[in-house]
């Protein structure tokens, strides 16, 4: 890997991680709020049904299904997109850490972080054990 600029110090990497987390959570909160308002205005008068567990419909379980829902402007799909962004925030943080440790030439922690990232991606891909 060509050396681009100087390696980050721990402090600089920590600043960037702090900002990354803050931005991710804020965007997720805005999307969830927006979807929530549309959901309430469209379905607010109906009755909530959470006593019996049915599980979510297939479109709210996968990334592609959620995207399809958002494109057809469905409120529950939009909330689910916000929740997906929220789940993706720590994943993005870990992905960034791989990059940060690589710039510090810290091989041990590049490997450690890659293991964590693989477990997270396995889970998001609907991991079954």
């Amino acid at each position: 890997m060509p050396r681009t600029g100087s390696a980050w110090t721990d402090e600089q990497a920590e600043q960037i991680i702090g900002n990354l987390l803050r931005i991710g959570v804020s965007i997720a909160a805005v999307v969830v709020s927006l979807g929530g308002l549309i959901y309430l205005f469209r379905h607010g008068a109906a009755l909530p049904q959470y006593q019996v567990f049915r599980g979510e419909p297939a479109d709210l379980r996968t990334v592609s299904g959620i995207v399809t829902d958002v494109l057809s402007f469905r409120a529950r799909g939009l909330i689910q997109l916000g929740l997906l962004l929220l789940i993706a925030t720590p994943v993005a943080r870990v992905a960034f850490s791989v990059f940060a440790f690589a710039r510090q030439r810290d091989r041990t922690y590049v490997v450690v972080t890659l293991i964590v990232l693989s477990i997270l991606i396995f889970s998001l891909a609907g991991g079954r054990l």
Partner: protein
Amino acid sequence: MSIWEFTLFVGAGSALAGFLGALTGLDGGVVITPLLTLALGVDIRYAIGASLVSVIATSSGAAAAYVKEGFSNIRVGMFLEIATTAGALAGAALATRVSTAALATIFGIVLLYSAYLSAWPPRPRPGDDRPDRLATLLKMNGTYPTATGLATYHVRAVPAGFILMFVAGTLSGLLGIGSGAVKVIAMDRAMRMPFKVSTTTSNFMIGVTAAASAGVYLGRGYIDPGLAMPVMLGVFAGSWLGARVLVTAKTQVLRWVFGGVVAVLAMEMIYHGLTGRL
């Protein structure tokens, strides 16, 4: 009760939980699941899915602040996340095989332990000064800001901490909680890290742990947008507010009150679980 009323009620309750959680240092999301199941009759699997999502929101929000202050030990956090995420996957897999009655009972027992920790938190004490070979090899020893400038500390007992973290991850994946209490015990008691470093690093890890099980929960249809929306926004707003009054408020009385409430909820969960009414 219409969806409007339900959403406002759940949002207000979650905000209060997040607020008290931030004030007392106890994982506020821990009371969401009992509130939803006991007060509103929500199926425990929906409740766990919603609570899990709120855990990511509060952890990431708080971690952003702590990381910048230089308290969290990112290397320790990242290394132990191998254990917590693997544990979280195992816990999430286990959750689909365990009956709801058993889930409620286990939840109640973990809740009782949280209540105990809330009322009698581990005392802050200076870190141990002897270096440990494995911790040194993994570059885990660090510094943190104190009143008199940066203080150095050495990390110990990495394998014991790793095993405890796997347990913390499993509980997190099984019950949709942050397991902050178990994580702090692992770092503070076993690995002998300074208390402030343990709590902030634990907070830093909670989001990643919860994300690991949230992926599985989402894929299984446990995360309902209509329910998760007020829970996530409520807890997030409440803990944001709570973190800002933390400096001035007297927290000891609050800890006892909150610990008491959690203990009562824990007993209710165990009772309902054992009598099979959930």
